[in-house]
């Protein structure tokens, strides 16, 4: 049931990304809700589920892009895991801190993606990066509430942060 709800949230997120966010270029940057899914899943649950959500959303997005397939997935995995770990380790559950974390994690994810993209032969213009990072961070902060709400619904009460269920890999 959780998987079905998650799939629905991913599908809707992807449609919003492709139809609303992607066509809206601001200073050469386009928002990236795929990254936000990884961040929000990690905030709502834990590092493990954040990484899995980041992988699923990233792989889905990769299949629609012309950049190397697996790049968004790898970024999503790492961002989801880092955010989940950071949240568990150091962060308090204050709204403003969580918004700040979304912004910082979005910036980190974008720079990570750019770095990995360069490694895999995609040309990235460093001069455009600050604008891209800023746009993605702002868009993700703006969309963080609805995406977190959707993921909270998808995961249900049993798997949310603070009351984590078993690992998906437990036998």
């Amino acid at each position, binding site marked *: 049931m959780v998987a079905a709800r998650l799939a629905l949230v991913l*599908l809707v997120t*992807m*449609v919003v*990304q*492709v*139809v*609303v966010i*992607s*066509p*809206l*270029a601001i200073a*050469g*940057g*386009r928002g*990236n809700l795929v990254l936000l899914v990884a961040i929000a899943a990690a905030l709502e649950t*834990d*590092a*493990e589920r954040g*990484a*899995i959500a980041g*992988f699923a959303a*990233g*792989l*889905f*997005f990769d*299949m*629609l*892009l*012309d*950049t*190397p*397939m*697996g*790049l968004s*997935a*790898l970024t999503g*995995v790492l961002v989801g*895991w880092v955010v*989940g*770990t950071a949240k568990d380790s150091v962060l308090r559950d204050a709204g403003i801190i969580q918004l700040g974390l979304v912004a910082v994690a979005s910036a980190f994810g*974008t720079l990570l*993606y*750019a770095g990995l*993209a360069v490694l*895999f032969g*995609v*040309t*990235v*213009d460093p*001069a*455009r990066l600050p*604008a*891209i990072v800023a*746009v*993605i961070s702002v868009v993700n902060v703006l969309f963080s509430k609805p995406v977190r709400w959707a993921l909270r619904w998808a995961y249900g009460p049993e798997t949310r942060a603070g009351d*984590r269920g078993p*690992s*998906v*890999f*437990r036998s």
Partner: protein
Amino acid sequence: MARSRRFGRSRFTLVLLVLASLTVLTLDYRDSGPVQGLRSVVGTVFSPFEGIGNAIASPFKNGWRGIFEYDDLEDENRELQRRIDELEGDVVRDEAREQELAEVERLTNLDFGDGIERVYAQVTKGPLSSFDSTFEINRGSGDGIEEGMVVATDAGLVGQIEDVEGGSARVRVITDPDHGGFGIKLLEARDVGIAHAASEDGMLRVDDGIGRDAAKRGDAVVTSGLDRSAYPPNIPVGEVVSQEPTDDLTEQSLLIEPYADLDGLSYVVVLLCTDDCS
């Protein structure tokens, strides 16, 4: 203890997912058939959902454009008003349809690429992320399109075909950092150089090769078509918007704004030639 066990499992999941991502990346890097096939299948399955999303978002998008692209809309309306005045009494057509028709008509009257067979195509999907400035058209290998073919509008050069499938193709625009440099020529001064994507969004830059006093703001730039150039000669590229001397003061570097509106393309023309374009 439980926390440590959970952290261990979490790390195991992380390693597994990273390995899965790297496997996909490797398969894609090796250009393996299943990965491309999967991409094509997902694109096909996703497109009806995209259509529904577009239908729902369309009124909101129009409202957004009305608020934030007011100046552009004003210019556009003035041009439309002029046409309506010329046509005296003709029925006012639907604005969007008239724009599209006019665009297609202009494409049929290209004043470059004489004698080269061409195919007209509609842009079906724009760039999806900040790191991907390719767009998709609704013509593919079934229409004679091949990788490397030239894509243009009546305004000028747009880019090159990069990937082709049966009924669609992806185009890499000339301002994409991954688009290689290409030969250009100043129409008036005849100086030639190599243009490539500029750091400024949507612009081109020529670093050297242009004589010290050869270019001035507003000068027209066309493709040179010289040996090893990716494009045939004399396709309009853009106009010089600024120029500054190179470090050794013997030449100029130029910033060029493409004539074609690369962010707002609806229709394009593909010149069906690869090596025999000139």
